[in-house]
């Protein structure tokens, strides 16, 4: 397994202790997959309140680059999520923060995940990775959009169905 640089691992350990001290509301869990390898993390994201994602839990896979925190972490949805800016198959997330253009070392894994959580509540259908659901949203069919999101959340993300 690759090892992160001393500066990166020191900071990652800090982030982990910070997270364990006070857990932010948008995350259920955030920790390295293996305690000995700080370059590979996993997180569980809580569906934000007042959105159709509420009640679901999504697993996100996080890879830390060598030059972290100068470069953004690589985040990918493991649990399928129905969202215009998330690729339906690979789970790739279209967020300027994660692409490095807007990234600065001031972000942490936790705050970056908060951005992802906010992206769930504020889809951007004009730069879609999931063309189909983006088209639904662009036509203004909010009911269909919400229903699709909820169905995916029930199917994959452990959300409790309203009728079953």
């Amino acid at each position, binding site marked *: 397994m690759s090892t992160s640089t001393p500066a990166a691992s020191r900071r990652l350990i800090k982030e982990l202790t*910070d997270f364990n001290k*006070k857990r932010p509301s948008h995350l259920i869990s955030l920790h390295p997959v293996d305690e000995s390898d700080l370059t590979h993390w996993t997180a569980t994201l809580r569906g934000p309140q007042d959105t159709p994602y509420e009640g679901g839990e999504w697993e996100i896979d996080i890879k830390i680059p060598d030059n972290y925190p100068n470069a953004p972490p690589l985040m990918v949805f493991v649990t399928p999520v129905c969202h215009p800016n998330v690729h339906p198959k690979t789970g790739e997330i279209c967020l300027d923060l994660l692409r*490095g*253009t807007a990234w600065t070392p001031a972000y942490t894994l936790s705050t970056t995940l908060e951005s992802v959580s*906010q992206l769930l509540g*504020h*889809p951007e259908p004009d730069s879609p990775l999931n063309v189909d659901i983006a088209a639904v949203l662009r036509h203004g069919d909010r009911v269909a959009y919400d229903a699709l999101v909820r169905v995916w959340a029930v199917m994959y993300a452990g959300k409790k169905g309203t009728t079953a």
Partner: protein
Amino acid sequence: MSSSSQRPQARPARISPSRSTPSSPPSTNTTAAANSSSSVTVDADASVTIPLSAPRSTSSPTNAVARSPSPRQQDDDEKRCWICYTSAADSDQPKERSEWKSPCKCSLVAHESCLLDWIADVQLNRRESGSQRRLECPQCKTPIRLKEKDSAVLDFVDSVSQLAGNAGAFVAFGGLASVIFVSATVYGVNTIYTICGPEFAEQILLNRETNQFLWSWRTGVGLPLIPVVLVASRTRIFDSVLPVLPVIFFAQSDPLHFTLPPSPQITLALLPYLRSFYNHLWGKYISPYEQRWLREVTPRHKLESEARRARERAVRRNRDWDALRQRDNAQRNNQNQRQQQQAVQEEDGVIVEEREWGGELLVDNHNVIIQGNNLTTLVLGALLWPSVARLAGQGIGKWPSQWGGDKIRKWLPSLLARNLVGGLLVVVMKDFISLYCKYKRAQKFRSRTVMNYSEVMKLAQHASKARRATRNSNTNGNAAR
């Protein structure tokens, strides 16, 4: 931490939005959701993580404003680097960590080494991807200033390479333009040699004293203009400018000094005048017939619509005059001034519209289209003219003596004169051949009748009978043989 006096003013502006974010959605602007969410997260970063690591911290401005009434109590141990996230109090803090720096007016502090590392990374990215990301504090967006040894050479090279990167399009355009310029110039030189023959061409192009090619503004502009002028001379767009150009570019020395066999420069300079004279004669004496024949072969509906357009244009012109007159009246009649002006204004509106519309009509009545040429044949014909003239000139030069060739050669001693006369003859012949064709086509139309089907059948029978007859005679002949 030296600029603590500025901080209290800067803080509330940054912190108040971050305080409000948890309760309300970060942004109502969904079009920039990605951007807004990211900027909000920076705030959240300050509001969430800093208080966590240093709950009683007074160095953190977030706490200072939101919770602690006394921002003065700064405890160095509670400082936390926003890049490596270690604080001064950490036990594993290595001693070699460099000093703390606060490069902006907000609360973020960092180790100098961390900052330098990050800056180097940003600059590397900038050089590699050419992105124009500024170096600024991620929270308050204050530009981060560096003190470094200036190197004039490095700055120069950097700015030049940046310019070169930006100027790619311009360079490409310039390359294209120079290709066009060079080919036009080569074409120009070639044309002069073709038309004038080597000796006169050298007289025009070479310096008289040194006998070397003279690259002056005249040749620099004039030579590439030759193909342009040739093409332009096929239309009437540049009629007003065309006769002046050759005088400028060819009459290099004393244009008024006129020798009887005119110098090649003067001869070439006179060509456009000759052309306008010829066009004038053609328009006066031949065009009426040409127009009549053309009209005879044009379908009636087209003629009618053209006539209607012409009538409309005339009406419009009259109305323009009416409007002008009315305006004059309005100015004169002081009693009804207001009403009249209103009327004129309304009329003006209508007229302006119609004028624009009329302009479009005029375009498709342009003489380029009247001449019946399309653009390609026009350009090609114009550019091929010198070569054709040369061919005709050679033809004149080799005219057999028994048909008066000697006399012609005596009249036109130089290659230039023969080429020019040949070229002119070609133009005149071309015009008359096309005129003859128009006449013949008109005649054909005039004599046209439609055959009845019985006539067609009769003709077909005749033809087949004749064919059979020839075939029979052929087979008979073969059999006899």
